[in-house]
């Protein structure tokens, strides 16, 4: 959420929190907290699929986003599309043909960077469910303020006052961009700058994933 200077990228993100395996009914569940933004994710699968929705060589992934109040609208549908495309790129869905994987994301509190929080919670939930993945992914949001400074992991007030908001999904093996969702106006140079900053921020997030999973398995070792 801090401002980073243009000469040396010093990326600071809000405080993270994560917990896995907190719900008893789903096959995998996780909760991810970035500052005040908090999301709960649940994964069911590989389970039975309706014949009309089955794909003969891959698993069918369905993402459902529930907001805290109100019915899901077009904005939630487009966020679901972004999350689904990212997950399909990293899951090895060809190992479970004619099955269904369902991901349900519940917003507990929204204080900015919601889409990247969805992506992080989804990745932890897939790991908790034991679904085979070829790489991990994480989400990073950057906001460009009116004076041109780039803010990573913005809060809701910073997002409102910014002139552009960019969210990227980065993969863990080659730090490539899996998905991008942008709003507002920005130049090509600013886009490249935000991608570089997101790639640096993703290293911290992957390190955090590793520490959480190590902590979880340390109890049974």
């Amino acid at each position, binding site marked *: 959420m801090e401002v980073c200077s243009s000469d040396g990228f010093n990326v600071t993100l809000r405080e993270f929190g994560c917990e896995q*395996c907190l719900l008893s009914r789903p*096959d*995998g569940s996780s909760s991810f907290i970035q500052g005040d933004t908090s999301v709960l994710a649940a994964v069911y*699968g*590989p*389970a*039975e*699929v309706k014949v009309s929705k089955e794909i003969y060589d891959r698993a069918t992934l369905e993402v459902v986003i529930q907001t805290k109040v109100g019915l899901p609208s077009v904005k939630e549908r487009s966020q679901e599309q972004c999350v689904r495309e990212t997950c399909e790129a990293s899951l*090895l869905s060809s*190992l*479970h*043909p*004619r*099955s*269904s994987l369902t991901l349900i994301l519940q917003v507990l509190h929204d204080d900015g960077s919601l889409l990247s929080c969805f992506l992080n919670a989804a990745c932890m939930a897939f*790991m908790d*469910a*034991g*679904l*085979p*993945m*070829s*790489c*991990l992914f994480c989400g990073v949001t950057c906001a460009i303020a009116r004076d041109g400074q780039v803010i990573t992991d913005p809060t809701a007030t910073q997002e409102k006052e910014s002139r552009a908001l960019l969210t990227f999904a980065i*993969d*863990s*093996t080659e730090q490539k961009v899996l998905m991008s969702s942008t709003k507002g106006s920005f130049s090509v140079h600013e886009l490249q700058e935000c991608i570089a900053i997101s790639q640096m921020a993703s290293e911290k997030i992957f390190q955090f*994933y*590793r520490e959480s*999973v*190590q902590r979880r*398995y*340390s109890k*049974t*070792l």
Partner: protein
Amino acid sequence: MESCLKVKVGAVLLPGDVFTFIKTDTISLTESLKEEKIICGPGLQRNGDDVVVCKSGVLRHKNPNLYWVDSQQRRYVPVKGESVIGIVTTKSGDVFKVDVGGSEQASLSYLAFEGATKRNRPNVQVGDLVYAQFLIANKDMEPELVCIDSSGRANGLGVFGAGGLLFKGSLGLVRRLLMPQNEILKDLEKLYPCELVLGMNGRLWVRAATVQKTLIVANLLESSENMSAQQRRTLFKRVADGNL
């Protein structure tokens, strides 16, 4: 070549971690080239010359060259040769459809029971519990179960379940209970005499002398998954003293 895997045995791995096997360009004149074979178990995938981790968990090793990732999972995926507890859902013609907790129902032919012939059909109703073994289980075909082994004998497989309790645990709990000489079962033996059937699909069935004892044993098994050995022993002791 195998050393890069051996170093990581016991470490926690995440999906996307890669083990590259470096091919040496220089051939030594004194040592002969040895071919090393590594068997990749669950959680490891071969990607050309690399081995890629695809599940998060702890890397385990069994001599001489078997490596796998031990992960905690709740959802079962059918594997050939595993014995599972299934629930019969429909009887259609010559085949029973059995729910094993996977992504599709498995089929169980009525001839796959001991002593079954076309005239002598087995006594299996919808809703019965069967302990069966997977004959066919891969991602492309419908899984198929049998209740006999290769010599035609039942050998413990078949219909069971009158008077007991079926409940679900995680796959890791069942694997721990099936290990030879494991402590949870040793402690349980001293407590009450009971009958236990463990399915590799995470389903457990218990029957003890009375309904209350059955429920106590079921609760003990479910809770022993998340307890350390010390906590478990104190809990078992409390039950044995009759204070629960």
